[in-house]
């Protein structure tokens, strides 16, 4: 990627940083959480694809990269799902 490309990615990251901070002042509650995580996810994808060059790598590396996040998603979703049932039990 050219220097200009890297700087453009950086600029996008800075804009998204501003968006994250601005959105937090909107007081959106549960939607705010999803929005914050969503913006962080987009920033992560930009860093992973362009700065870490995953876009140019083989699918095998994509699988290795994705596996960590998939297992983390299982951990968090599983934990929160279990906890959300506690209030319902007698």
């Amino acid at each position, binding site marked *: 990627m050219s220097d200009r490309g*890297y*700087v453009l990615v*950086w600029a996008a*990251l800075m804009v998204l940083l501003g968006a994250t901070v601005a959105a937090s002042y909107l007081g959106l509650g549960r939607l705010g959480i999803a929005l914050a995580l969503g913006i962080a996810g987009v920033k*992560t994808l930009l860093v992973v694809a*362009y*700065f870490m060059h995953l876009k140019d790598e083989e699918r095998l590396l994509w699988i290795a*990269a994705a596996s960590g996040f998939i297992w983390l998603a299982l951990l968090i979703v599983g934990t929160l799902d279990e*906890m959300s049932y506690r209030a319902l039990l007698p």
Partner: protein
Amino acid sequence: MQTTLEAEARLGAETARLGMWIFLATEVLFFGGLFACYAAYRFLYSDTFSLASARLDVLLGGVNTAVLLTSSLTVALAVSRSRRGRSSDAGFWLAASSLLALAFLAIKGSEYHHKFVEHLVPGPDFAFEEGSPGPARIFFGLYFVMTGLHAIHVVLGILLLGGLAVVAYTGRLRPGEDARLECAGLYWHFVDIVWIFLFPMLYLIGVSR
């Protein structure tokens, strides 16, 4: 056209990158355990977590995020120079990255100092009046452990990037792709990604009340 030496270096670097990505997957779960802990306690005590988070300095946290994002840019530029065989230019960008990382630590250190002074460190001196006292301690405990673990990773990153800056500046990077630099670059971007999530989760949940 690349020489046999460059082709060998490229194959070595590709193999090293695969191993590095697998290592980073384990690191995702290393930090991920703490994020899961955070998610669980925030789910239970979201109100107190918001109150506690409001005591963190959003401006300093935001500036630090910008510092780390910029350091990822400079590392990417360094790797780009390295791949084009411009070793001493790569050294310059690696040195810049190390300086930005040091700036991050300086800002973090100042934040920690303020937390000590304001009695927000979980322990006998802890004093936080709002919300439930237990969950407030949990929030600040998570704050120090998560940012502390991250800061340790930043220190290691500075040692790696700084060391490679010297290697690069003296023209000793491998032609084509240098496996050491490629792996250090991936490590640093990972450290940046962890902070990309830490910042909104710790600093921004108490902003709008």
